[in-house]
């Protein structure tokens, strides 16, 4: 094992590493023991609290409907945000300064605002509007609206970066064979950019799934975290329910993340593409990071404003 930071360990370094491993194991064990003790002292390890999760009822009544709502809101948001993002992303590269300006301002504005504020605002708008949205459905509308506004602006940057990551020769060749600007965009640039963007888009889905939980706490949207509350009120098992719900989130998001990195690797390897890929961590590490210069893959750092 060698890296830029250290050499392949020799005999002395090996001994030091083993010593460090032992010390670190002891520290970890101490931490685990302390967690276990705290759980035990507060009677959180009793089987009664965990038993509900072995029965079907806790899952069919609370957790699975909650998870379904989480995924529903995430899916709807993605389906609406993606085309909207594409429109704004392309508009930001327009040849007309005023189109660029308007699109740029809108995108920058919604990216600077916390998604929670957008949700709260949308919720209140729906309360006061003359639209006939029942109070049961309102949280879903508000959550989706907030997520769409925020993620469309993030995806706009993804689309823009995806198109910019294509080699210039693609556009030049398209012009050379006589295609117009619109034709170049729709039949040359977009199809290639979409494959390059796929990993980044899937990663953005993780961000959306995580953000739905905000609606559960602040707006009473019946998603997974909200379902946990009802479940814990019924079985009086706060800590176990938190652990189970966290594990569900981790599994769902881990599947999405793994899918994104699988896609990314596959696209990198494929000979057909131009080799332009937006890495999954460009967006996933931080939605705001999309602005930087990337497209070369390993350079996720150094992006900037």
């Amino acid at each position, binding site marked *: *094992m060698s*890296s*830029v*930071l*250290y*050499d392949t*360990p020799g005999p002395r*370094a090996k001994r030091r*590493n083993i010593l*460090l*491993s032992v010390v*670190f*194991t002891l520290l*970890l064990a101490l931490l685990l023991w302390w967690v276990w003790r*705290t759980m035990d002292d*507060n009677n959180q390890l009793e089987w009664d609290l965990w038993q509900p999760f072995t029965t079907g009822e806790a899952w069919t009544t609370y957790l699975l409907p909650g998870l379904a709502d989480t995924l529903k809101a995430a899916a709807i948001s993605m389906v609406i945000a993606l085309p909207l993002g594409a429109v704004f992303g392309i508009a930001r590269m327009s040849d007309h300064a005023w189109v660029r300006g308007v699109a740029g301002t809108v995108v920058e*504005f919604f990216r*600077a*605002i*916390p*998604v*929670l*504020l957008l949700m*709260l*605002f949308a919720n*209140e*708008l729906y309360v*006061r509007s003359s639209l006939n949205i029942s109070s049961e459905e309102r949280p879903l509308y508000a959550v989706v609206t907030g997520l769409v506004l925020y993620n469309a602006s993030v995806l706009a940057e993804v689309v823009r970066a995806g198109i910019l990551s294509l080699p210039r020769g693609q556009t030049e060749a398209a012009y050379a064979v006589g295609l117009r600007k619109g034709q170049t965009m729709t039949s040359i640039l977009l199809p290639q950019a979409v494959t390059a963007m796929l990993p980044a888009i899937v990663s953005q889905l993780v961000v959306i*799934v*995580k953000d*739905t*939980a*905000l609606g*559960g*706490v*602040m707006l009473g949207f019946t998603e997974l*975290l909200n379902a946990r509350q009802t479940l814990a009120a019924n079985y009086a098992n*706060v*800590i176990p329910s*938190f652990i189970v*719900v*966290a594990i569900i*989130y*981790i599994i769902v998001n881990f599947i999405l*993340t793994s899918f994104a990195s699988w896609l990314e690797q596959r696209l990198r390897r494929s000979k057909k593409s131009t080799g332009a890929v937006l890495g999954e*961590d460009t967006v*996933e*590490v*931080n*939605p*705001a*990071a999309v602005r*930087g210069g990337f497209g070369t893959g*390993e350079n*996720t*750092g*150094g*992006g*900037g*404003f």
Partner: protein
Amino acid sequence: MFDFISDYDDPSLWGAFWMTVKLTFFSGIGSLVWGTLLAAMRVSPVPLMRGFGTAYVNIVRNIPLTVIIVFTSLGLADIFRITLGAGDDVKVMSFRLAILGFIVYTAAFVCEAIRSGINTVPLGQAEAARAIGLNFSQTLRLIVLPQAFRSVIGPLANVLIALTKNTTVAAAIGVAEAAYLMKTMIENEAQTLLIGAVFAFGFVVLTLPTGLFLGWLSKRLAVKR
């Protein structure tokens, strides 16, 4: 037009945004420290530490921040009675718990930003340093870390901006910051649009200069390759 703002004094508009700034500041420092430690573990030669760092990052960044923040209140405080030395003062307690939650979450992203910075330094740099006879600490001090640090500013700035926006989640456990005040205001006042604009403006003011300044800094300091 803005009369209603003075009707609120617990928290006031300034107080709420000041709370957002305080949350960002303390969580930022905490997650920088913890995130750097995690990054050190993730690139260390000890396999066990690498494993721990990887596991921590992969677990924490797949859990919604909201779950972590709500857990600090309903789990840590209510069940385990961990109040971080705040005693009975609920306001101080939820403030400290929120910061703890933000540190746990944000550190995972800080760790990834720093690690990606270290990875941008080409292996040849360290090899060349050793070839001209520099020892380990010289290589690290004079060659690797200066380059790594420069390329980390951009990603870290993005994490800081995301953290500023994420502090609104603290409203879920009753910390009186901007989103908390906005929720109360927007439910009680008629000027929905105006309130939305005021709070949106507040966040634009908080995040835009940070982004511009740190972006300028990272461009200025970027290693030209």
